[in-house]
């Protein structure tokens, strides 16, 4: 069931080309604004600023693109899915799909940053592991919150308001590992943070799995 739902998500996504193009353009615009506002042809930025800019761009584009996982769905369509599948299968397929999307966005963001702003990362392997972990965390938190926000009136504002405080703990860990990756410090120094990130991901996924059945009925 999860596989079938996952296939449905991906085919739907590929069918609506304008949505993917929109997300890509959003990411590109954000990166380009960073490039323009810092006047990077003349100046260069230090590693800490690079990390802050990168995570801001990723945060905003991920929140905006994952928000649509429940918010954009038509009411009748949702009822149809719910009559076919269990809520657990729906949330798990959403989380897996959103993880892939968030990871794709993060990698695309990294590529754009490398092109426009430069790539000061010394330990690329560690950084990509971090991107994978944060994608899982972002997607499990945002899938549930998108489900909550879709039921309310001003969904889009609510999405940002509800998700930012929850995402800060993931972001703090990620920024700390990024600093290690930027300085090229030995992998062993980041084990604690990676483990913390993994623990936060487990909590977020478990909670999304347990709590989603309570919101899908309404």
């Amino acid at each position: 069931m999860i596989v079938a739902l996952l296939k449905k998500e991906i085919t739907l996504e590929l069918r609506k080309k304008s949505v993917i193009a929109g997300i890509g353009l959003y990411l590109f615009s954000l990166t380009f604004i960073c490039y323009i506002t810092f006047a990077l042809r003349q100046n260069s930025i230090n590693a800490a600023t690079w990390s802050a800019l990168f995570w801001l761009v990723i945060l905003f584009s991920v929140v905006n693109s994952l928000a649509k996982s429940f918010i954009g769905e038509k009411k009748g369509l949702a009822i149809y899915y719910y009559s076919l599948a269990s809520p657990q299968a729906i949330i798990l397929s959403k989380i897996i799909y959103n993880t892939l999307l968030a990871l794709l966005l993060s990698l695309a963001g990294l590529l754009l940053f490398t092109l426009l702003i430069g790539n000061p990362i010394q330990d690329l392997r560690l950084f990509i592991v971090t991107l994978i972990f944060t994608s899982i965390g972002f997607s499990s938190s945002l899938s549930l919150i998108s489900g909550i926000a879709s039921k309310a009136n001003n969904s889009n504002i609510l999405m940002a308001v509800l998700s930012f405080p929850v995402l800060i703990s993931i972001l703090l860990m990620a920024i700390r590992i990024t600093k290690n990756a930027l300085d090229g410090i030995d992998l062993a120094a980041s084990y604690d943070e990676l483990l913390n990130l993994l623990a936060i991901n487990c909590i977020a996924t478990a909670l999304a799995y347990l709590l989603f059945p309570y919101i899908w009925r309404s």
Partner: protein
Amino acid sequence: MKQNWWKYIGVLLLIYVHLGGLMLEAPRLNILNETVRALYFHVPMWFGMVLLYMISVFYAIKFLRNPLSDADVKSVEYAHVGTAFGILGILTGMLWANYTWGSPWHGDPKQNGAAIALLVYLAYFVLRGSIENDEQKARLSAVYNIFAFAAMIPLIFIIPRLTDSMHPGNGGNPGFNAYDLDSRMRLIFYPAVAAWFLIGLWIVSLRVRYRILQNHLTE
């Protein structure tokens, strides 16, 4: 909680804490000096906040298991009073930091964590405000309450311990730990925590009764 004895205990303890906390001898510690007395008023706010939020989450879980409207009212009111405690905790902390660190907002990990905890619950109130259907409001906000509380724990309890902080009790600074919490201070500190918590419970019980009466009137 029909009996009133615990309210009397709360009031008496609070009178004791104010008199004793301001007039009794306090240990001389480096940097802190007389500001160590903030311990009796600032730290109980955080204990109170965390306890009240925990009870709020407990009622949120109770509501999801068995949707009675009473559990929802209790959950919200515990969150309200917990937030009030948190705001007081931040304000007393800023007052203290102004004299000890030189500026009210110092960007310390503990300050940031506290601010984020408040943001979470302010977002919770915004969520409640933007859903019209009462039953749906109760269910969705209970889900967010549980989720946000679980996401907040690493923030408040783990992250400040990973980084260096200038907050007393961290990184070799004198403060709240077994070695330098003077036995004289303990005599006032523990009653202070109990007293503020009892006062918090009292405020919650009044607000819950008021809200339930209001609901009866509108039905």
